[in-house]
């Protein structure tokens, strides 16, 4: 067959300002996609625009600020329906015959409800509280609460607590780091996440690649993930965390398994995942021991048995059409925590068509799950963590007001460490040293610096959450949980308002 010439033009073009460039070649060294090349014969640096993903690595590191990355002005004729992205996708598939891969979360414009929800504040009838002067509490406990507390009290004033709660996770801020496996990211990233979680008083989730023994010291702040590939799962691993999360699905790719390409499976990763070096690590789409809800219940109980009922077990699902009913089943399958991952949820690699078209917005799923569990009187028997595109403290506050107990952040944590959402995680060449296991590139993440950046983010968001809470006249986060009266919506239709259980602004 004849070779197919590509019709695809570079998405971005590099402009190098000649009067600024001192030919230090830092850009050449920093670009992991070989966009910048030095030609010693003519002492010049050239650009290969077609490889550029606009990750901004060279721009940030150029000491003379000589580089501009611009959107290629040579675009197709404007068309609202046949957008450039659509045309490019078709050409790419016509040239390769393959599923289009992508990284990170759905980037389409129409699915963010957080921005349509606005928060309340106290005026006149009720004083707002100043967090600089009064304590505002955002500590959160995750886990199964009981239906009521039994107190035994006798004449003489002696009281005893008869109720023993199921194991709980204690969070100093209602934010946890979402699952990102060792393999999808490298050990330095895991180190930074684990350390920041431990030092701030929250949790980091291992993802499906096991836990490196050097991180065992953080086990009080680690959530161990068990996913369909069961990579790295053994009794020791299960007991090295504060909680266990069964991953059924993921917002970026509901219904789809995982695929860590063999190139990323280096020695350490292979060891932890208990597979040979260089083999693809394939996570099946379903758990092949969970074909129905009672099977899930068995796995929940098996994990509880294996850890002697000392750790909460979470079940993570992608937000899909029947999330409410599924969540109810998960509570009845004895899970302690439900994790809902919305359509904006990120990934290291997913088929683009799945990422952008499967699953529903987390805001709607959360609202319907919280309501269903309340209607069934079982909301107290489970905690809800939501994830998938949480971008700011405002998103956190809105999520809690809609009914979440806490949120996972993945993308936001990566952005804090350097990620610029170029969406090329699946190449394994992440120029920021995050979504790569290449030993050289991985060095770009210094765990000391990265964990400091993560802690700063947690601190900044926590302070903002306190400001918002105080403004609403609340000094404890539990008073916001599911308090949808603190939310108003702008620009939503009746059906959306109904699902969200929120009034329109002005109402």
């Amino acid at each position, binding site marked *: 067959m004849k070779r197919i010439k590509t019709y695809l033009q570079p998405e971005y073009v590099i402009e190098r300002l000649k009067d600024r460039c001192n030919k230090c070649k830092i850009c050449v060294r920093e670009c992991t996609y070989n966009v910048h090349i030095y030609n010693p014969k003519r002492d010049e640096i050239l650009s290969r625009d077609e490889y550029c993903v606009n990750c901004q690595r060279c721009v940030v590191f150029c000491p003379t600020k000589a580089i501009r990355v611009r959107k290629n002005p040579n675009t197709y004729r404007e068309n609202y329906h046949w957008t450039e992205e659509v045309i490019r996708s078709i050409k790419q598939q016509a040239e390769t015959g393959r599923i289009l891969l992508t990284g990170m979360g759905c980037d389409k414009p129409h699915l963010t409800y957080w921005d349509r929800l606005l928060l309340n504040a106290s005026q006149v009838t009720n004083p707002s509280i100043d967090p600089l002067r009064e304590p505002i509490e955002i500590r959160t406990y995750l886990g199964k609460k009981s239906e009521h507390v039994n107190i035994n009290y*006798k004449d003489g004033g002696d009281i005893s607590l008869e109720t023993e709660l199921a194991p709980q996770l204690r969070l100093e801020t209602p934010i946890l780091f979402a699952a990102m496996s060792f393999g999808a990211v490298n050990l330095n990233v895991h180190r930074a996440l684990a350390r920041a979680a431990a030092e701030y008083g929250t949790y980091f989730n291992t993802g499906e690649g096991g836990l490196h023994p050097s991180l065992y010291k953080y086990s009080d702040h680690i959530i161990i993930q068990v996913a369909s590939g069961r990579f790295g799962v053994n009794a020791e691993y299960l007991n090295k965390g504060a909680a266990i999360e069964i991953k059924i699905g993921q917002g970026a790719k509901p219904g789809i398994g995982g695929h860590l390409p063999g190139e990323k499976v280096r020695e350490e990763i292979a060891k932890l995942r208990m597979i040979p070096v260089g083999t693809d690590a394939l996570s099946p789409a379903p758990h092949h021991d969970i074909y129905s809800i009672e099977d899930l219940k068995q796995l929940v109980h098996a994990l509880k048995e294996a850890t002697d009922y000392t750790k909460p077990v979470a079940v993570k699902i992608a937000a899909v059409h029947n999330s409410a009913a599924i969540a109810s089943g998960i509570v009845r399958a004895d899970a302690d925590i439900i994790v809902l991952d919305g359509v904006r949820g990120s990934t290291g690699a997913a088929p683009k068509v799945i990422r952008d078209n499967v699953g529903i917005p987390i805001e709607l799923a959360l609202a319907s799950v919280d309501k269903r569990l309340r209607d069934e009187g079982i909301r107290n028997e489970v905690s809800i963590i939501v994830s998938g595109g949480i971008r700011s403290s405002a998103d956190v506050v809105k999520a809690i007001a809609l009914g979440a107990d806490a949120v996972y952040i993945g993308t936001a944590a990566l952005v804090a460490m350097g990620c610029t959402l170029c969406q090329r995680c699946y190449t394994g060449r992440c120029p920021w040293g995050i979504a790569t296991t290449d030993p050289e590139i991985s060095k770009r993440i210094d765990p000391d610096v990265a964990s400091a950046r993560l802690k700063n983010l947690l601190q900044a968001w926590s302070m903002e959450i306190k400001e918002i809470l105080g403004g609403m006249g609340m000094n404890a986060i539990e008073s916001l949980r599911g308090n949808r009266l603190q939310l108003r919506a702008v620009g939503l239709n009746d059906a959306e308002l109904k699902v969200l259980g929120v009034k329109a602004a002005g109402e």
Partner: protein
Amino acid sequence: MRDLSRISNPYRDDKVIDSCSLFGVIDLEGRRFPPKAPIKAMDIMSERVNGLGAGFAGYGIYPEYRDAYALHVMFMGRDAKGRTEEFLKKNLRVLMAEEMPTGKEMRDAPLIWRYFVEPKIVNDKCSEDSDNQIVECVMKVNNGIEGAYIFSSGKDMGVFKGVGYPSEIAEYFCLDEYEGYMWICHGRFPTNTPGWWGGAHPFNILDWSVAHNGELSSYGTNRNFLEMYGYRCTMQTDTEVIAYALDLLVRRHKIPIGLAAKILAPPFWNEIDSMDSKERTLYATLRQVYGGLLMNGPFSIIIARSGEMMGLADRIKLRPLTAAIKDNLLYLSSEEAAVRSVSPSLDRVWNLRGGELLIGRLRSVKTLEIPPVVGLH
């Protein structure tokens, strides 16, 4: 099903918002007296009310029907009275029925009757059973019969309330003709509700009466939590959620009142962290399980039930509540001035601290309940 909130909250706001004056007095020896002093004290605090609601609850006022439930009922429609009486006769034994004695006419006053009733089958061993029957009847009338509203349903006690200034309401109900050992009073300054007689405080169910000053920022959360336990918050008021929360905690979950107060206004986590291990587990567990009942935002409340008057303010004390003692009388009031106006010299007067529950209890009442845990703040 009738939607009471349409009457109490006609603009469909998130909830009914009001502010107010509170006053309560109990004679710890149980001696009965007419509410002259409380009426005067309420008058002193007229700055705090706007004439759109006031009410009184008196305990020990019906000694002749001590063992019967006294139902005070408002009728706003033509056939409401007939339907209610038919319902009461069918479900309860009515010992006495009469129109509420009233003084000079007031504008928009509904027809008010009182009924002394007993359950048809009385289970001597289980008073809870009788209570539950009465609660069920109250809920059915209030939610089911258009134009009828039972606003008082305890034994040997009664609530008198309506739209007007406290002194007008007292005069309307001829309160000087009653004698009780405890009175709690409320004057309202509603911000979003036109006067509706049923919307005035105190709110009552069975033995419990609550008069409340405040606005709960946590209302939505509190309401969600209570709805999970079968309560329907038809009145859409903060006071209603406080009353239901106490009912759930104290009556249904058997939590001592002192600890129940520590659920509504819990210690801060750093206080809990520094407790000894047994206490820490207790308070942490209560906060974890009942976090949805934390009453956040400003409030002070006076709660009454037979033989007991309780005062509680929110944990950072955003609304006033003063306590005072003179001889056998324990006072609770929004303002010290109001207490001084009826008892210029006092043995002791102090402000309640945030989250601190004060219980005034008849000396004759024997109780198994622990005293409130003090000294946490």
